[in-house]
């Protein structure tokens, strides 16, 4: 498969702090790429840079920010606007030729057509997250960056959200997502990036991470990740992934 996005030599400094160091990878169309790692590994920074919400201190991303859809970890929506008004605003800001068509499409994809006129602030956390993810998709970008998309969702909401994301990937959208829930990466990701201390330590299939972590096929990816980090980045042992 050909790459739809290439990141090369990405680095980010906050003063003395080195949040990302020389991170390079690519993602193909329709691929689900999971980014895992301990707290402070640089997952959010990496996704923010891919989406253009932050500027990298060094390195390049092959696509301009507007070609990467973005759903930040915390929902970035206008609580006083309705679901449809949020969609319409961003459709217009994206400069879409048919904003109302995009609104209808997003309402259908999120399954929130019957709540189109409801203010976002009154929706459940799960529905807000669906709108949050959908806003990243409104311009039909070839790549979608999702930062902890299932955080704060209950199991049912999480299941529905992953069904929605998987459908997007099947339709050809490349999805890069970060998660603390390693079993989610094991279940949904085609490939996994392991970040620790701003460095990219692993870029391969989940089954390879299982092997490197000493786990059998179908074993526990979280245990494999801990074992992998203990072997390759022992300074991170003790911090949950």
């Amino acid at each position, binding site marked *: 498969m050909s790459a739809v996005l290439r990141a090369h030599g990405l680095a980010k400094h906050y003063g003395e702090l080195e949040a990302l160091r020389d991170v390079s990878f690519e993602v193909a169309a329709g691929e689900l790429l999971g980014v895992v790692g301990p707290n402070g590994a640089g997952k959010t920074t990496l996704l*923010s840079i891919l*989406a*253009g*919400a*932050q*500027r990298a201190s060094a390195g390049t991303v092959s696509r*301009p*920010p*507007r070609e990467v859809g*973005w759903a*930040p970890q*915390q*929902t*970035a*929506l*206008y*609580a*006083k*606007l309705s679901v449809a*008004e949020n969609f319409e*605003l*961003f459709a*217009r*800001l*994206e400069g879409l030729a048919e904003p109302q068509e995009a609104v209808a499409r997003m309402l259908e994809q999120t399954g929130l057509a019957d709540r189109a006129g409801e*203010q976002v602030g009154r929706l459940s956390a799960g529905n807000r997250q669906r709108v949050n993810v959908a*806003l990243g998709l409104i311009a039909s970008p070839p790549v979608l960056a999702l930062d902890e998309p299932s955080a704060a969702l209950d199991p049912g909401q999480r299941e529905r959200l992953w069904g929605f994301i998987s459908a997007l990937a099947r339709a050809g959208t490349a999805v890069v997502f970060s998660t603390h829930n390693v079993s989610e990466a094991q279940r949904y990701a085609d490939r996994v990036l392991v970040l620790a201390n701003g460095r990219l330590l692993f870029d391969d299939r989940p089954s390879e991470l299982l092997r490197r972590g000493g786990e059998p096929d179908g074993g526990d990816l979280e245990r494999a990740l801990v074992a992998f980090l203990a072997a390759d980045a022992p300074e991170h042992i003790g911090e949950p992934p």
Partner: protein
Amino acid sequence: MRWLLLKDLRILGRSRLLVALLVVYPVVIALLIGFAISRSPSKPRVAIVDETPAGETVKVGGERVSVSHYADELFNQVEAVRTPTRSQAVAKIRSGDVLAAVVIPQNIAARLSSTVDQAHLEVLYNGDALEQSLVQSSIDSAIAKANLAFSEQIQQAAARAIEALLQGGNSGILGAPEDLIGLSQIPSSLSAIIARRPPGAERRELQRIEDFARFAAQNLTLSRQVLNTISQPIAVTSTLLHGRRTPLNTFAVVVAVNVSLMFVCVLLAAGGVALEREERALGRLVRGLVSREVLLAEKSLLGAGCAFVVALAMLCGVGAFVTLDWSRVGLWVLALAAGALAFGALGVAIGALAREVRAASLLAFLLSLPLAFLALVPGGAVSRGFYDVIGAVSFAFPFKASLQALDAAVNGAAPGIGGSIAHLAGLTVLFGALARAGLRRGE
């Protein structure tokens, strides 16, 4: 920018309590400030104990001036509460019914008539430091005015006595002959007599008396002029160096409108920027959808536009009650627009630096209110060094420049509107740049 502006107006429209507060609060504050500035200080409520016997007079030359004139003058300067005795006056002060009491003693007439003793009044007062200061200055001023008026009465009586001495005739002075010769007439009468007398010792003696009479008449004329001069030693001629004289009530209108303009604009602009951060939409917007400059300009215009409408409506509304020069309405619009843009820039700078709506609102209040008060401190009210510091602070923020622009637009006051608008334009650029730097902070 259009869609962002529409979005913000839609959100504002759904925050009715916020809109009501944004409009009502500054208007109330503005009206209170305007009212406080335009209203002259009220007369203090003072008990007057007049112990002088009824009809008591002070004798000046052949005339008598009633002591009750003095009490009347004092009554005019304060909200007088006639009180029969000193002890009742003390009770009124203690109960808070009056701020102070003035006791006019029984012997005041005798002392005024005496050339040895000075007349004395007794002033009694109570209260905290602020009340004491107010009462002392009010009573001092009232007594000074009453003294001046009473001394004018005495001077007029003295002037009439001198006039009678100079001109003669039926003077009306107690004990004077019916057809009194005036001192100024003596030299000419004596001159005619002297001309008929043969030279000799008697004629020389009469000549000396004529010289004395002429000299005395000349000096008494001078005394009359001196008395007039003493009654009002210094006349005041006021000259305004530039601009038009601004009536206090129209200046109060300008202050009130400017305060409203500042509050609505700064709060809306600051809150607008902070809200984008708080809703975490800023990251979504600035990743290629909207530039930071456009975002700041939109928030600035939102605040400026709303504040402009409120301020112009307020100015036009007040114009129904206070005489304003409606031919200058174009200048009002210009001054309000320039002020609104500068306040908008200040607002977005606060919003970008504060990052949260609550912090931005608090900072906007904490900054705006003192700035308004500092800009209203008149020169001479504080020490020179402190006034220079106030001047520097006021120069660095838009309130004073906006006030001057609006005062020039509404009242034709100095300095002219051009300089103030240039100043406001400079501040708009400065705070816009500060907002831009603040928005980038933390990225």
